[in-house]
């Protein structure tokens, strides 16, 4: 079956990166004292017609079906696709429903990135203030709690700095667009 160039490139990339992982793992295991029979058994090939090798590793070099999509190594789903597959009413820590997030992430949504990132920055500022007050109110005998709080505070402060830079960048970009439209 013929296969288009893009699918071929994707397949080759998936196989190459996969081969690196497999070779590395097997080498480490063998060098570490051999591979137990039950482990070998747990990798018993499934006989999946799409990727089955029938015992011949060289078959990996020839994709048999251009319709098969194989994720690249380290790849993760696009955000909008990920959230659209989660249960719609399931909520995150802050009580926001997955369906609402999926809606905002889909292409063509009404998400105002500039305003929302500015709002997010404000939320971080408020949260940092809250943690700073909590830290100040804790006595010296709560050292463990202090370490955890300080850790959270440090992460939030770094993120706030990042959000400030991003907000400025988004503002500058929008000003540049406005100037070009006016000119």
């Amino acid at each position, binding site marked *: 079956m013929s296969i288009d160039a893009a699918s071929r490139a994707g397949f080759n990339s998936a196989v190459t990166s996969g081969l690196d992982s497999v070779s590395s793992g097997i080498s480490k295991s063998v060098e570490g004292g051999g591979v137990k029979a039950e482990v070998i058994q747990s990798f018993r090939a499934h006989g999946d017609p799409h990727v089955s090798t029938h015992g011949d*590793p060289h078959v990996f070099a020839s994709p048999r079906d251009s319709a098969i999509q194989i994720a690249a190594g380290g790849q993760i789903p696009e*955000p909008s696709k990920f959230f659209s597959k989660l249960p719609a009413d399931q909520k995150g820590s802050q009580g926001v429903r997955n369906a609402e997030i999926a809606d*905002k992430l889909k292409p063509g949504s009404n998400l105002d990135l500039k305003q929302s990132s500015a709002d997010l920055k404000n939320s971080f500022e408020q949260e940092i203030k809250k943690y700073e007050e909590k830290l100040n109110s804790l006595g010296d005998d709560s050292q463990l709690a202090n370490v955890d709080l300080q850790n959270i505070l440090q992460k939030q402060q770094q*993120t706030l700095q990042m959000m400030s830079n991003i907000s400025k960048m988004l503002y500058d970009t929008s000003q540049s667009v406005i100037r070009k439209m006016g000119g």
Partner: protein
Amino acid sequence: MPLTADQVAAGISIAHSCFTQGRLKDAEILLEGLITMESGNPYLHMLLGSVLLQQGRLDDSVATFTRVIEISPEDISALTNRGEIHLKQGRLKEAAADLNRSISLDPKGEDPFANRARLLIEMTASLLNVADQEGLPALEKARQQILLQLKQS
């Protein structure tokens, strides 16, 4: 004050953009901060896991994908990614558990991440056979032959 859907979406969009642009440290900082506010959001941990993986921080990446699986036990992409890291690090038993679980969640063979798990299982099964019967030098030879055939195809 709780974050709104717009704020969560904005945070994710920006972190994802940083990631795709290769600004891994920026993505990491953003995600670490967002996770302090939204620790139950599996995608934040997923994206962080991928950022750490790209930085070569495999142990941290495994821990982060583990967190995704704790929140969403049937997440195929997290299972495949964690399984592959286990594989890279020579933890074949753990790798088999994750990759087989990933495959079992996609009986129709439609999910690209489950297909990657299938590919990894098949490759490992074949090459384990080679290593077991002929030793490590034969494994490297088989690897080179596959790469050569890929180049020539």
